[in-house]
């Protein structure tokens, strides 16, 4: 279907995800439980692992007893080892049944689906904000940023639609070793083309990892806020954790409050290099969108909605967005799940 037809279907002028989707009979490689009904699921899924990009999701059959699939964000994808990783919280019947699946079990998965996050080299300080089950796409984005310094994750702005997939960030992981930024956000970046991301994660249940003091000093953040995600630290990416639950080393408040305190310390030149990426509960995304507006920053948000087909056929998963022509309904599955925050909030 041409871009014009997509417009016709949605009365929109924003393209949808058109790449090939794969139905795979995946195998559970590992399935780890964490407090707060959180689970880390690793699936053998070679086709998806080869193509997945940050912000995309898979549509999986949680259990034969509940055949309608559930959309779950990707947290990591390893093309070399053919696995994808999903962090999810058991919140409903589907995810509760999924939580029972054991290593060796087969799970049908469609993927990768959806518009990925788009990073822009002219904004080399991505601010990644994840809340609760919105953390995984931020980890994925951080993973790909560290692997490919200065490269856009999707089509660069101004590129022609339908550009070669070779532009996709991280399709050849490991091709840019030693990419970890040597400077933390807020300090003068020594290399203008290197990404200097800052990741802020929030949770009101225990984090699904053992937080540790960050090895990175981030100017502009409260010195007592030192808790970080170890995986990100290992990757050389500074992160900080926020919660209202009084977890040690964490910021006592909302992710957006912590992000604001950092943004306030940046001068105009530094702010011009920041782009905000967020995934999490709807109220958090609304607050992130407002924050981005306050600082005049571009902001991409990843949304979720009840979903049936997951491939754009049923229009069941829509979100109302603002367009120059007035309100429109966009499908979260293939028109999203990543949207420009200004269209949604």
């Amino acid at each position: 279907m041409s871009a014009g037809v997509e417009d016709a279907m949605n009365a929109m002028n924003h393209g949808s995800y058109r790449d090939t989707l794969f139905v795979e009979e995946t195998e559970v490689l590992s399935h780890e439980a964490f407090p707060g009904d959180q689970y880390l699921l690793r699936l053998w899924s070679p086709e998806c692992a080869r193509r997945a990009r940050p912000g995309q999701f898979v549509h999986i059959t949680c259990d034969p007893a509940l055949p309608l699939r559930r959309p779950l964000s990707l947290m990591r994808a390893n093309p070399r080892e053919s696995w994808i990783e999903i962090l999810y919280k058991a919140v409903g019947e589907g995810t509760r049944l999924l939580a029972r699946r054991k290593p060796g079990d087969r799970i049908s998965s469609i993927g990768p689906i959806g518009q990925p996050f788009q990073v822009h080299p002219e904004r080399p300080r991505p601010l990644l904000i994840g809340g609760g089950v919105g953390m995984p796409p931020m980890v994925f984005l951080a993973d790909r940023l560290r692997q490919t310094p200065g490269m856009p994750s999707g089509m660069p702005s101004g590129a022609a639609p339908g550009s070669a997939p070779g532009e996709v960030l991280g399709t050849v992981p490991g091709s840019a070793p030693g990419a970890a930024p040597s400077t933390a956000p807020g300090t003068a970046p020594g290399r203008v083309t290197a990404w200097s991301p800052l990741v802020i994660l929030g949770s009101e249940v225990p984090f699904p990892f053992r937080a540790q003091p960050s090895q990175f000093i981030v100017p502009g953040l409260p010195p007592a806020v030192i808790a970080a995600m170890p995986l990100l630290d290992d990757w050389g990416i500074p992160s900080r954790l926020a919660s209202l639950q009084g977890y040690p080393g964490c910021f006592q408040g909302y992710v957006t409050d912590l992000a604001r305190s950092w943004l306030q310390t940046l001068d105009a030149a530094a702010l011009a290099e920041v782009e905000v990426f967020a995934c999490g509960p709807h109220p958090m995304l609304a607050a992130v969108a407002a924050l981005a507006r306050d600082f005049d920053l571009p902001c991409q948000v990843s949304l979720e909605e009840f979903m049936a087909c997951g491939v754009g056929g049923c229009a069941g998963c829509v979100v109302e967005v603002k367009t120059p022509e007035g309100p429109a309904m966009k499908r979260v599955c293939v028109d999203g799940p990543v949207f420009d925050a200004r269209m949604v909030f």
Partner: protein
Amino acid sequence: MTVDSNLDPRLSVDFCGLNFATPLVLLSGCVGFGEEYTRIHGFSNRQAGAVCLKGTTLSPRLGNAPHRICETPGGMINAIGLQNPGVDRVIRDILPTLDFSETRFIANVSGSSIEEYYEVTRRFDDSPIDAIEINISCPNVKEGGVAFGNDVRMSAQVVAACRRATRKPLITKLSPNQTDIAANARACLEAGADAFAAINTLMGMAIDIEQRMPVIGNNQGGLSGPAIKPIALLKVHQIYQVCRDHGIPIIGQGGIASAVDALEFLIAGASAVGIGTALFYDPLILTQINQGILDYLDRHDLANVAQITGSLCLHGPSLPACGCESA
């Protein structure tokens, strides 16, 4: 245009003079405007005898507020609200992109007045579309929102209006939310329907007990999926009593998720069978249903699918006559 099929010719069926390469029909509202599923590796529209496009109205419609869908035991409830860009844009922008050599494409016409049904049908009549399906389950704005399809008189009026607007095969999609579906089918047949699709979804509700609110933004929606299959089978059987003597084919639908399900509908009287919700479960299900039907033909030494249609052997007395004066 002829469909260039690579399927076993024993699967092909004649439907109102159109050749369907297989009795499987992809249902309206499940596959967008016909191309969405083709992005899935291993899926092809060639595996379907026909594809029903998304419900189309005269003017563009935004559709309902979310949530639009939720899973229920053995099925799902949906209330999309006929989101579509309007008939003119469908004809101008979408139809030219469809590959009519792969399958038959059927327009699905909706309206909130008889005049709207007429006008949308008239515009599709002047298009390459292969056939037109009328969704008569829409509310009649002029009659206080009562669904056209739940009233025999109004159903027949819609069919008669659409009949005046087109010479293409006209399929009436019947609602199960009425007392006597056979009486409705009889009235629609006499008003000029060439075929029937049965059944549309059953109206239902799901409630979030924490919020004490309906899960669906529209409060109520249409129930589909395996849960409704027994109801759909009986309705198809009842409609077939009306259609049999007139040679009017039926697209049986409602919870078909396997070759066995499809065969049950064919035996009950359907000439073709619709796949909807099951496609959401397994996007590659068409291949296995087609194969399952072929296996059945082999096992029962049958030459083609048409020999299965209406082959039901009832317990007890034979079937009643159709009741039409013209029969």
